[in-house]
């Protein structure tokens, strides 16, 4: 898994690529929650994520909850079909913010 961060004035963008599983989910979660606390709204780009399991979905749940607690948004953008399938299997497509 690889990641790139772009920080703006009032938000940040996290670009993820590759495979997300329990070997890297905790580090992604720390990055995402750190960005929410530092910059507010977080946009996570998922176009190039080729595999995700429940550990990865848990990252989105935790980031979403953390954003709500901080009155900001965590938006999942350009979600790859591999990721969307697992989000929908978890019945989270109407809970997480997906654009």
């Amino acid at each position, binding site marked *: 898994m690889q990641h790139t961060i772009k920080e703006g004035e009032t938000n940040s963008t996290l670009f993820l690529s590759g495979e997300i599983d329990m070997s890297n989910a905790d580090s992604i979660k720390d990055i995402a929650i750190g960005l929410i606390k530092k910059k507010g709204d977080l946009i996570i780009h998922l176009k190039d994520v080729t595999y995700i399991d*429940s550990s990865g979905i848990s990252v989105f*749940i935790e980031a979403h909850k953390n954003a709500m607690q901080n009155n900001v948004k965590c938006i999942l953008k350009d979600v790859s079909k591999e990721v969307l399938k697992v989000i929908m299997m978890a019945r989270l497509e109407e809970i997480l913010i997906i654009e």
Partner: protein
Amino acid sequence: MGLSSYKEFSIHPDNLKHIRIYVKIFFIKLKIKSAQIDDLVLVIMEAVSNILKHAYDNKISKDTLKIKLKLEDKNLITVQIFDKGKLIKLNQFRSRNLKDVRAGGLGLFFIGEIMDKIKFMQTNKKWNNHLIISKKITIT
């Protein structure tokens, strides 16, 4: 690789990607529909992740786990996963309640959603935990 295959992997999160490749190649060679391959790979990875988390408390070990894959008659895939970690009581896990938006329990929920049969045993002498899961599949 034929109609059945087995392989052992040491208990280490870095092996997750190797396990993914191993099981995916087996299913591709059987010419299973790609959407079903994705589902089967996800289920196996959830089961293996649960072993690392719960049977080994997220600790690396020199122990191995064994994955046995078999195409049974009538397009039935059976997956067996054996480990030597601490004995797991299935009732200590709670599958996810859909109204409860939380991170835990999703893996078990996926296994239950995708597979047709799930059996969990602790009777084998060499291995402590033994999961058997099966699903009817479609060959392309």
